[in-house]
């Protein structure tokens, strides 16, 4: 699918470039320049969007307003291009294709924003609850298992490969008070306070286990979109 996308994107890029070259050497060079300017602005906005999504994931963008502005800037270029290529159905189709890819980019951006907001919170609460359990519990076995889960989750923040997800799943099963696995902790092994904190920890750990790979996947898919090629 990816190869097909790139082939299509390259063909569309060639079509747009051919159109721009033809226009730039004709009486319509002004139109071509306006189209190039619109594509430039879209390209700049897309670069900023990619940068800011990574900043958001890294926790150094604490406000999503720039992402909104960048998405809007990429979208704003489409009506301008449509107006400029009126009367040329083939190039118009290329612009339609670019618009569809920008729609996909926006959908991915919104999913990443929503998931990232939850991710930041669950990372913070996971750290809070694991630290509480490690510091306050007198249960050495519980502390050992919390340490194992924390290490696996740290690994997942760095690498969301399937084997690392399996590692987290294994640690989650080992610590779950409701676990049916022979190696799971039994509820009677835990004080009521520890059991409540373990449940809170597991709720956030479960969300992290889902969100960390999902955001990685969404970011990779968004960066692979052939927006640049289609310009």
């Amino acid at each position, binding site marked *: 699918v990816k190869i097909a996308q790139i082939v299509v994107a390259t063909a569309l890029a060639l079509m747009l470039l051919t159109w721009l070259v033809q226009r730039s050497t004709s009486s319509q060079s002004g139109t071509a320049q306006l189209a190039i300017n619109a594509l430039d602005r879209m390209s700049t906005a897309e670069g900023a969007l990619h940068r800011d999504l990574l900043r958001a994931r890294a926790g150094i963008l*604490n*406000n*999503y*307003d720039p*992402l*909104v502005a960048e998405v809007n800037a990429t979208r704003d270029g489409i009506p301008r291009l449509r107006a400029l290529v009126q009367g040329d159905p083939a190039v118009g189709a290329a612009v339609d294709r670019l618009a569809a890819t920008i729609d996909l980019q926006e959908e991915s951006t*919104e999913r990443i*924003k*929503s998931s990232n*907001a*939850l991710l*930041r*919170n669950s990372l*913070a*609460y996971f*750290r*809070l609850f694991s*630290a*509480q359990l490690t510091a306050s519990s007198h249960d050495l076995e519980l502390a050992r298992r919390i340490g194992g889960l924390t290490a696996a989750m740290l690994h997942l923040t760095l690498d969301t490969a399937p084997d690392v997800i399996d590692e987290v799943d294994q640690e989650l099963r080992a610590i779950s008070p409701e676990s049916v696995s022979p190696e799971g902790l039994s509820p009677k092994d835990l004080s009521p*306070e520890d*059991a*409540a*904190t373990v*449940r*809170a920890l597991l*709720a*956030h750990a479960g*969300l992290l286990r889902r969100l960390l790979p999902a955001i990685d996947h969404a970011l990779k898919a968004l960066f692979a979109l052939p927006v640049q090629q289609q310009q």
Partner: protein
Amino acid sequence: MAALVILFLLSPSFAAPPVPTSAAGDDEPIAPIQAPVVAEPLKAALGERLFRDPRLSRDNSRSCNTCHDLDTNGATSNVREPALGGGTLTLNTPTVFNAAANFRLNWAGGFRSLEAQAAASIESPRTMGARLPEIVAKLAADPAFAHDFEEAYGHEPDATSLIDALASFERTLITPGSRFDRWLGGDATALSPEELKGYRLFKSLGCVSCHQGVNIGGNLFQRHGIFHPLASPEPEILRVPSLRNVATTAPYFHDGSAADLGEAVERMAYAQLNASLEREQVEDIAAFLRTLTGTFRGRPVRPAP
């Protein structure tokens, strides 16, 4: 159920990064909102007359201002507004103040522009129930409106200009000057110690992950009921509401099911963060939220009766 309630203990190690006590730092997640620049005052003035005119509804019974009272909170205090033809609307009506600063409009974020939202509300059978051509005909028969359209747009009333005028006016419905904005601007005396404590909690508990930016929300979608049910299940995904003027806009949530600010804070923390807040934490956060009330035309935004 009690066993599911999580004892939320705020450890010293979980405290937010220190918030300066004298003024905001440069990297605050919330930015002050600026007074609007009215680029085309004739269009905005016409938009205000239209906003307050009941002829925009099918039976001339209600104007935009009926459900978005500009003299109080830009909404009403109703859980759900009466619908045209009986019954009530499905969702609580959000305030129109600062709606222009939201990236999408309405609870589900189904509209990208003020123009699209205004046209949809006018033509919704349950809200205004009118047809734009019918309204245009009514307005064209009114010499005063015909004159105002001519002055603002250079031609007689038409649907495009009508919607444009409404949107132009709505872009002026911004409420700057809240105490929190003054604090962000460097006025160290604008917030009390309790309110600052509430802001620190707002950040450290995670409320700020969604409620950030110039509108303190309004710039992303989020699922509700992440850990526990929050309110009515539909719509499943909401455009995060702005918290500007939130102390004046009870009842809360898309179904209007939270009667006051404390209840809303408590339920949000439990549903979205899996955190059971202590009474004092709720009060501190509510104290912070009360500093988000801005002014409209020089007067503080106030709750609807």
